[in-house]
């Protein structure tokens, strides 16, 4: 078992949020390195210029089945593993991938100054990425008012 971190500061240009969902980071399987993985930690927050009007940012973790337009990022090993991750990291989407309808496993509204972190306490709580090409999870955000950048991170176990 090896653990990896995938976040949107590993590559590409951070995109400003808008009123429709924008994928910040995605973790998916790929045929070339087909492996099943589990997300055991999710962390979200906003790192751009705050809006003068106090406002919220809505985050969502949903299942993705086809890739959008994004920057590929290499998952960072967290435990000294020398093996490259089989899971593919994608960040800072400029065009959304295909999101499975009604597949959101969590949605969370946070204040623009707020942060949120979730950790699985055991394996049964982890979100499973199936060993199916392009399947995985997309961590997305939108805001009716906040129009700057955000940081999202998922940690995977495979």
């Amino acid at each position, binding site marked *: 078992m090896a653990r990896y971190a995938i976040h949107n500061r590993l590559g590409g240009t951070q995109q400003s949020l808008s009123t429709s969902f924008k994928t910040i980071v995605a973790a998916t399987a790929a*045929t070339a390195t087909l492996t*099943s993985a589990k997300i055991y930690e999710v962390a979200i927050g906003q790192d751009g210029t705050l809006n003068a009007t*106090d406002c919220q940012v809505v985050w969502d*973790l949903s299942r993705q089945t086809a890739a959008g337009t994004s920057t590929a990022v290499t998952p960072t090993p967290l435990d000294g593993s020398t093996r490259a991750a089989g899971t593919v990291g994608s960040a800072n989407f400029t065009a959304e991938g295909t999101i499975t309808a009604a597949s*959101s*496993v*969590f949605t*969370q509204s*946070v*204040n*623009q*100054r*707020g*942060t*949120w*972190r*979730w*950790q*699985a*306490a*055991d*394996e*049964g*709580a*982890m*979100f*499973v990425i*199936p*060993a*199916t*090409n392009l*399947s995985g999870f997309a961590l997305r955000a939108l805001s009716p008012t906040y129009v700057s950048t955000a940081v999202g991170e998922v940690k995977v176990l495979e």
Partner: protein
Amino acid sequence: MARFRSAGYSHYVDGTGRVHEHDTFTCRHCQKLVKVPAFAKPEDVGGLCYVCMAPVCPQCTDKGQCDPFEEKLKREEASYHARRSYL
């Protein structure tokens, strides 16, 4: 709820810097994350599936049938590998 093997932990810092912490569980049937307020009754945050003996979210509780997520994944992966075998 922490005794279930689907437990997690949510840590939220709001706009004023106040910290809100919750236990969570992950629905064994659909993987939805459910927050568990302190002293919440099990029936208020979902339920317990007596077939797979795991906590499930309110929506899956209402369905009244046991279809664990692992079984859904097996079906999806079997379908994927079957389709790839024709290539």
